C-alpha cells in the first residue's frame, strides 16, 4: 500500500541518525529511495523501462513475455517492444572499509553512513534495472560482488553491506588497479571513502578506472568532527588505522589541521574534476539524498 505523499516527502530528508536505528539495510534503502523518488518532480521510473522506444523482430532467445501479442494478433508476426530503460548500466559500488571509516563523533559512523549510502544506491540502481555490484576494500580488495541484474542480487549486495566490518589502513592504488584489470565492461563506478590517502594515489587510481571508459563518482564521506575539529581539551589522539598515538593540544593544531584538510579536499576536488570524475563531499550528519542526486546525474550522463 502506498504511503501518503506528504509522509514520503518528509522521508526524503530523513536523518541518518534515525536511519541507523533501522537494522535492515533493505528497509533503510527503500525508505530513503522511495522518499527521494516521491520528492522528485519527474519520477525516474517514468524514464526507464516504461517509455516505448521501438519494435524489433523476435529472435530466438528473447524472453517470451516481452513479445507484443497485440501486434502478433494483427500482423501474425512476433515483435518485441523495446523500452528506453532497457539499455542497462553496470553499476559497481566501491566501499572503503579501512579502520578510519569506523570513526564517529555521534551515532553515525562514517562506515555506517557509507553502508547506508551504498545500500540506497544499490537499491535505487537495482530498481532501475541496472546491474549492481559491490566491492569493499582497504589496502586490498576485501569483498567483491560482481555487478549483476540477476534475481537476488540486491539481497546479496545488501547482506554484504550489512556484514561490512572496518579493518586496516587505506590504500587506493592496489585495489583500484586490481579492479581496472578485472573490469571488462564499461559502467558506473561509485567510490565511497574518506580518502585518507595521498591525493595522487587516489586520483591516479580513479583515473585508471576512468580511462577504461567508466564513469566514476567519488563520495568523500567525512565526519562533522573531522571537518570542524571542535576539540577543546588536550587529549591523546589514537589513529584508528594504525593505533598510533599522538598528544594533541587542539588549540595549537586546529588551524593547521583545518588548513591541511582543506588543502587535501581542494586538491582532490580539483584533480578529480579535471579528470572528469564527479566528486561529492558528504558530511555524515547530512541526509543521503545529495548522494542520490549525484548518482542520477552521473547515470543520465551514462545512458
Amino acid at each position: 500500500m502506498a504511503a501518503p505523499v506528504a509522509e514520503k516527502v518528509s522521508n526524503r530528508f530523513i536523518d541518518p541518525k534515525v536511519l541507523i536505528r533501522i537494522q535492515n539495510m533493505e528497509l533503510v534503502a527503500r525508505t530513503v529511495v522511495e522518499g527521494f523518488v516521491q520528492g522528485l518532480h519527474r519520477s525516474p521510473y517514468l524514464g526507464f523501462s516504461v517509455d516505448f522506444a521501438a519494435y524489433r523482430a523476435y529472435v530466438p532467445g528473447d524472453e517470451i513475455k516481452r513479445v507484443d501479442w497485440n501486434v502478433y494478433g494483427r500482423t501474425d508476426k512476433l515483435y518485441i517492444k523495446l523500452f528506453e530503460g532497457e539499455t542497462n548500466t553496470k553499476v559497481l559500488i566501491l566501499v572503503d572499509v579501512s579502520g578510519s571509516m569506523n570513526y564517529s563523533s555521534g551515532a553515525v559512523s562514517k562506515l555506517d553512513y557509507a553502508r547506508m549510502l551504498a545500500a540506497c544506491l544499490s537499491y535505487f540502481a537495482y530498481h532501475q534495472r541496472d546491474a549492481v555490484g559491490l566491492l569493499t576494500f582497504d589496502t586490498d580488495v576485501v569483498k567483491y560482488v560482481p555487478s549483476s541484474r540477476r534475481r537476488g542480487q540486491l539481497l546479496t549486495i545488501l547482506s554484504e553491506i550489512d556484514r561490512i566490518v572496518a579493518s586496516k589502513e587505506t590504500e587506493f592504488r592496489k585495489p583500484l588497479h586490481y579492479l581496472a584489470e578485472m573490469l571488462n565492461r564499461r559502467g558506473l563506478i561509485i567510490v565511497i571513502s574518506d580518502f585518507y590517502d595521498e591525493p595522487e594515489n587516489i586520483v591516479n587510481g580513479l583515473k585508471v578506472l576512468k580511462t577504461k571508459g567508466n564513469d566514476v563518482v567519488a563520495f568523500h564521506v567525512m565526519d562533522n568532527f573531522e571537518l570542524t575539529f571542535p576539540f577543546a581539551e588536550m587529549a591523546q589522539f589514537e589513529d584508528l588505522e594504525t593505533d598510533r598515538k599522538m598528544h594533541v593540544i587542539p588549540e595549537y593544531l586546529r588551524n593547521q589541521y583545518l588548513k591541511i584538510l582543506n588543502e587535501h579536499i581542494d586538491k582532490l576536488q580539483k584533480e578529480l574534476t579535471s579528470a572528469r570524475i564527479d566528486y561529492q563531499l558528504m558530511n555524515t550528519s547530512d541526509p543521503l539524498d545529495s548522494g542520490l542526486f549525484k548518482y542520477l546525474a552521473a547515470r543520465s550522463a551514462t545512458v
Partner: protein
Amino acid sequence: MGLLNPLFLIGSVVLAVPILVHLVRRERSEIIHFSSLMFLLKVPKQVVRQQKLKNLLLMLLRLGIFALLVLAFTRPFMAYTPPKPGDTGTGDANIVMLLDNSMSMRYGNHFDRLKEEARKRIDGMGANDRMIIVGFSDAATVLATPNSTNSVWRTDKNQLKSMLGTLELSFNGTRYFDAFVTADRYFSQAPAGPRKLVVISDFQRNGWNRTSHENVIGKEVQTEMVSVAEENPNNLGIESVSADAASFTRTYSGRIVARIRNYKKVEAKDVPVTLTVNGSPMGRRMVTLPANGSSLAEFSGFDLPVGLSKAAVAIEADDPLKEDNMFVLALERREKLKVLVVDNGRKEESFQLRTALTASDTLPFQVAAVPAGQLTPEELVNHQVVIINDVPRLNDAVWKRMEELRKTGQGQFVILAQNAKMDWWGAQASFPVKPTRQIIVRQDRGQPFVSVTNYDRNHSIFKPFEKSAKLTMSVAEFFAYIEVQPQPGASVMARFDDGSPFLVESKPEDRGLIVMASTVHNLAWSDLALKISFPPLIHEIVRYLSGYNDARSWYSMGEGVPITGSVEGTAASVKTPAGERESLGDIKPGQQKFYSPAVPGFYDVQVGKDLRLFAVDPQMNEGNLEAMLPEDLLAGVQRLDEGKASDILAPNAQEEHARRSLTWWYLLLAAILFGISEIFIANRTQRSQIEPRRA
C-alpha cells in the same frame, strides 16, 4: 629588601594553581580515537612550537600577574645595604681620615687607641696615596696647613705621623656631620683616583642628630669605620646643673640642683657630691645612682660673699672619664635694683606698684617712694629706674634731669592716667606720645571695657606671658584710659583691642622711657593691679628699663660667650683659666662681642671698669658614651643608589622610608601591564582561527 605585610606571601600559593591545573590536565588527558592522524602529523613542528611558545608566554604572563599582585600586597621596601668597598677607580687613593678628639675620647685610653689605629692607616697607605687628617669634635679641623702648592694633601708618612702627634683632645662635644661635610669638601677637590674615608671614633650616639641628616658622602667613596668604643663604659658624671646665678641676700636665696648620672649597668651607691664656693666646701651630699639612671643633689642656704664667686659641684668617682665629674659656675651676690616711685603723695596710691616689686626678699628690687612735689633732681641720681605714677606734671628741672639721666642708662616709666595734664606731657619733645583725651570706654566706645590683646610677643617684657599658659595680658579689663598718639620713631609695644596704644617705648636713640596709657591703682579705670599678670609685667618692665641682665653664670664648651659694652665705650679683655689675658678690643656701648673659650674653667672679663665672671663647662652629655652602630651613622651620610632604602634609618626617616616603600605601586603597574599584554596576545590567538569547512 623587606616586606611590610609578609603575610600576604601566603597568597603566592595561587601561583601553583595554573601549573597544577596544567599538570593534572596533562595526566588525565583522555584518549580520543580519531579516524586518522594523517593531517595532524603533517602539521609543521615549527607551528606547534610557536603555539607552545605563545601559550608558554601567556602562562608566564598570568603567573607574572599573580606574582606581581601578591608581591605588591606584601608592600616591599628596599633595605639599605652599606656600599661595599670595592672598585672605586684606579690610581693613587685620596684618603680622608677623620679622628674624633671630642671630650668623650678622654675616656680611658680611647685617644691612645685612636692614634694607634690612625698610625696603622698611615702605614698602610700606598706609596703615592694622599691623605688628609681631620680632627673633629663639634667642629672639624684639618691638621695640615697648605703647602707651597696650596694643598693640604700629604703623601709623606712621617709628615702625617708628626701631624697626628699634634692632635690634642678637646673638651668639646661631638658633631659628626661637620666632619663628614669637611671630608666631602676635600674629596671634591681631590685629584683623580679612588676615594677612601676612614673614621676613627667612639661613635658616641650623642654626636649624631638624626633629624638633620643629609647624604654628603658620595656613594663612590670607600669607607672604613674604626670604633674604639667600649661595650660597657664605666662612667659617672654630672649631667646638668641648675642654679640661680644671682642672689640678693647673704644667704644664697636660690637652689643649686645637680643631676648626677650613672652610665654604668650596675648601681652606684653612696656617691659623694660636694659644693665648693671660692674653694671652700659649702655642702656635701651622698647619692645612690641606679643602673643607667640619675639622682639629684641639691644645695641651698649657704653663705655667699658680696660680688662674684667661683662655685663648683663635683662628684668623687673613680671612673675613666674625670672631666664630667666637676661642674663649675659663677655666682653673684648683687645689690638690689633701686627703684624710685614718684606719685602724688596720696595714701596707698603706689601700693600695688610697691607690693608687686617687693613681694619677696628674693626679688631684686629696692623701692622708694616720693611725692612729685618733693622730688628734687638730685634725688633721681641714685636710682636705676624711676616710675612716675600718674602725676599731673613734673618740675621742669626734674624733667630735664631725667632726660639727662636717661642718656646714662637710667630707665623711666611714666604712667598716664586721670591726673595727667595732657597739655604739659604733650609739650615735652622727648616724650614718646602725645596724649589727646581721656576715654571712658562705656561712653566713648560703646562697650563695657577694653582689653590688651595685641602686644609685641618678641619683646623681652612679654616673655613671661609667652612662656606661661597661666599668664595672659587680656584678662585685665580697662574701663578708661588716656588716648595717646605715638611720636614718630616711638614704638607701640601693646594696644587695647580698640586699637589705641597701651604701652609705648621711646625711639631707639632716646631709649629708656616707657609710657603706660592707663592707671594701675584706680580700680574705676582698670583692674590690672588685681590680676596675676600684673607683678610679672611690672618686674619685666623694670628689669628692661634698668638694663638688668640675668647674665648666665656658666656656658658650655662650644658656645660663644656674649660680652656687652658698658655705658661708656671702652676696651674689653678676658683672663683665661690659665691666667692669660686676651684682649677683645674696644666695645661700644650696647655693642656685643662673642668670646669662644678654649678650655673649661673660670674666665674673668673686664669691660672698662666693670669686672665680670663666667664659668665654662665641658659638654656634659659627652659623659654619655653610649655608642651607635658605625653602619647606622654611615647610612645617614652616604648617598645611595636611587631606589635603595635604609631600614636602619627608618625610625627617623619616615618620608624617605615612605618614598622607598612605593615599590608596590610599581609592581601594581607592572601587573596591569602584564594583564593588558595577556589580553592582547590571547585575543590575537583567537582572532586567527580558521573557519572549518562545510560539506
